[in-house]
């Protein structure tokens, strides 16, 4: 039971942070399907940052530096999407897909180069990130995640930035006509999503294991986060609940072999691993009919066409 709780917490935080990132991007009008790739890059740079920290650094310093590194890496990677879709007016879905494909390959090259060997597996110590509270193991990302959730809500609904960002995702011509720089707002949206995606990638990789093979990327977590975002209707707290829901499925898949009732089914591990994705397909098939995406998302904004 504690195992289930532990995994659910872990995945909730990951899915929520990444989905919140996606929310900022889509609310500004850019479909960010590249979250998967952004997570990979963020996770990779985060892991490398941990390794590069001088020996004897305090736990707090390691956490802060590596998380910042992951966020910045995610932002830089997302900036590619922003440039392609905002400046060049490229198709956002295709641009995002290209970035996803590039990310895993790039991560392997960098990891192998860093290792100086043919293995893309990086080892690191995750001690600074993990705390034991009674029988429960929690990681620092839980706290980061809660802060990000609250901040996301405040930024989106209580600040000038949030109001303008949302206007750009709904009706960019209206925003433009009152003097808002649509391109700037969309850059901000995509960059925030890059930062959150990067941190999310690290939160996915680091807490549970002490080595990661970057040949597997983040195995679909970014796409699950997209499902969470849609199921959460592009709203912060609903995204949080949706994340819990999906995390539960994903955790069940992870520990299925240790739950007697599920183990009795005698499936292979791959079958269990499919559970969260099948669940997301079914849920989205039923709920997406009613979902209301930001109206202008996916449409490149051209100042000239009025």
């Amino acid at each position, binding site marked *: 039971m504690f195992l289930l709780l532990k995994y659910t917490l872990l995945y909730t935080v990951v899915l929520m942070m990444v989905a919140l990132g996606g929310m900022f991007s889509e609310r500004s009008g850019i479909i960010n399907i590249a979250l998967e790739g952004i997570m990979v890059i963020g996770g990779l740079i985060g892991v490398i940052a941990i390794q590069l920290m001088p020996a004897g650094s305090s736990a707090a310093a390691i956490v802060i530096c590596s998380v910042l590194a992951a966020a910045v890496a995610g932002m830089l990677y997302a900036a590619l999407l922003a440039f392609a879709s905002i400046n060049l007016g490229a198709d956002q879905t295709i641009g995002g897909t290209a970035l996803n494909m590039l990310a895993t390959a790039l991560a392997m090259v960098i990891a192998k180069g860093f290792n100086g060997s043919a293995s893309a597996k990086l080892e690191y110590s995750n001690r600074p990130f993990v705390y034991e509270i009674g029988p429960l193991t929690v990681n620092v990302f839980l706290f980061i995640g809660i802060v990000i959730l609250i901040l996301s809500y405040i930024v989106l609904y*209580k*600040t*000038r*930035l949030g*109001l*303008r960002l*949302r*206007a750009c995702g*709904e*009706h960019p*011509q*209206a*925003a*433009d*006509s*009152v*003097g*808002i720089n649509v391109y700037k707002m969309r850059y901000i949206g995509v960059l925030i999503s890059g930062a959150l995606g990067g941190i999310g990638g690290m939160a996915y990789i680091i807490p549970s294991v002490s080595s990661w093979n970057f040949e597997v990327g983040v195995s679909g977590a970014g796409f699950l986060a997209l499902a969470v975002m849609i199921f959460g209707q592009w709203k912060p707290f609903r995204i949080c609940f949706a994340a819990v829901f999906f995390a539960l499925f994903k955790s069940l898949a992870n520990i299925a072999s240790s739950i007697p009732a599920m183990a009795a089914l005698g499936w292979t591990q791959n079958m269990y691993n499919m559970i969260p994705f099948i669940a997301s397909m079914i849920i989205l098939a039923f709920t997406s009919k009613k979902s*209301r995406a930001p*109206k202008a998302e996916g449409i490149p904004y051209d100042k000239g066409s*009025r």
Partner: protein
Amino acid sequence: MSDYIIEMLNITKEFPGIIANDNVTLQLRRGEIHALLGENGAGKSTLMSVLFGLYQAEKGEIRKNGEVVRIKDPNDANALGIGMVHQHFKLVEVFSVLDNIILGVEPATKHLGFLQKAEARKKVLELSERYGLKVDPDAMVEDITVGMQQRTEILKMLYRDNEVLIFDEPTAVLTPQEIDELMKIMKGLAAEGKSILFITHKLDEIKAVADRCTVLRKGRCVGTVDVATTSKEEMSEMMVGRKVQLVMDKAPQKLGESILSVQNLTVRSKRHGKPLVNNVSFNVRRGEIVCIAGIDGNGQSELVYTLTGLMKAESGKVYLGDRDISHMSIRERNLSGMSHIPEDRHKHGLVLDYSLENNLVLKRYFDKQFSSRGFLKFNEIRTYAEKLIEQYDVRSGQGPVTVARSMSGGNQQKAIIAREIDLGNDLLIAVQPTRGLDVGAIEYIRKELLRQRDSGKAVLLVSLELDEVLEVPDRILVMYEGEIVGELDPRHTTAKELGLYMAGAQRKG
């Protein structure tokens, strides 16, 4: 201080191949309502876009209070106190009225930019009280009426303390009652010292509110007149450049048997399950024009989609003559005698990237006359196209091979009309056939509809234009929220009565 708050002097604006504004001068007095009259394509919108900073003029200058100013973008215009209500509202549907008003000039804390909506709300409520602009600041824009959306747009300008207010065709989307109210609001604004520029092509409205009127024709300024001392006929002649027959002469009616008969037709929305067309029954007989009137979005489009086969009905029957066509395909309906001039000529009327001749045979290319064994007979098509172009006076750059996209709206519409009428069908369904066209083309199309009626065809007209609804048809059916709420005789009704039906305030039958 200068008499004029805004002066646009000798403005020339060129686009590739066309001079949109040629040496146009417009002077706006403080506190007046100044109408800008002209046909479509006369350059009204371009001129206002220059004033609002969307375009830069090649020649000429703009002065505010006598001083030369440069307006490079809408922000500059806003800083000079110039605001605009666009023809298509620029409102975010899922925002509240208040959020839409403050967007772009939000009151917020200096640090971190937290919104301070309380003071904004106070100011909005004050303005709304002072100018009689009733709005609910917390309502979502998607839930409020078009009239209230327009008031929101006006409040947007007032909130920014604009002194010069541009209204771009503000009455096109309103009911007659809402138009009256808007006129009152505009007068109130002028009385409070705001200066208003009012773009329109409706002479009644100019007569009702404007002090002066500047007329544009083909990019040139024809003159500025005093509205009180100029008749509608004079203004219309200035606008068009010749005398226009605004009132149609109708031949006496020769009614025949019923051609189109609709029985208990219901269409439900796929998205929210609400009925878009609710239990509608009517018929159209030979030799009459029946007009479906109503405010846009009350089920007229869906009704026509169902009649023409673009959409499926949930229940009910449609008969053409005595044949049940309810389940026929679109082509079968066409072949059974239905012609359709669609609402959206770009989407449903033409293949824009095809040549004119191919568009003209779009509904009959499969005839023996135009194809054999699956191959098209290009010579026949060319001959046929040339005949129609001649007969219906469709003007285009390169005749039959002109790409439809490059033609003007009026000529695109003429091409569709030529194609549909030449099918020789008993029923003609014409949906907003004159939308966006200039007076000359409108006159032509209305006469063509009457010709069809006089030659014993049945015509179903769907129109949003009040004057069209009152002038052209023999019977008017008013649709409100998917239902037919009344049948009126155009000879014995007024715009006011029609408006009450259109707004759902009155119904019979």
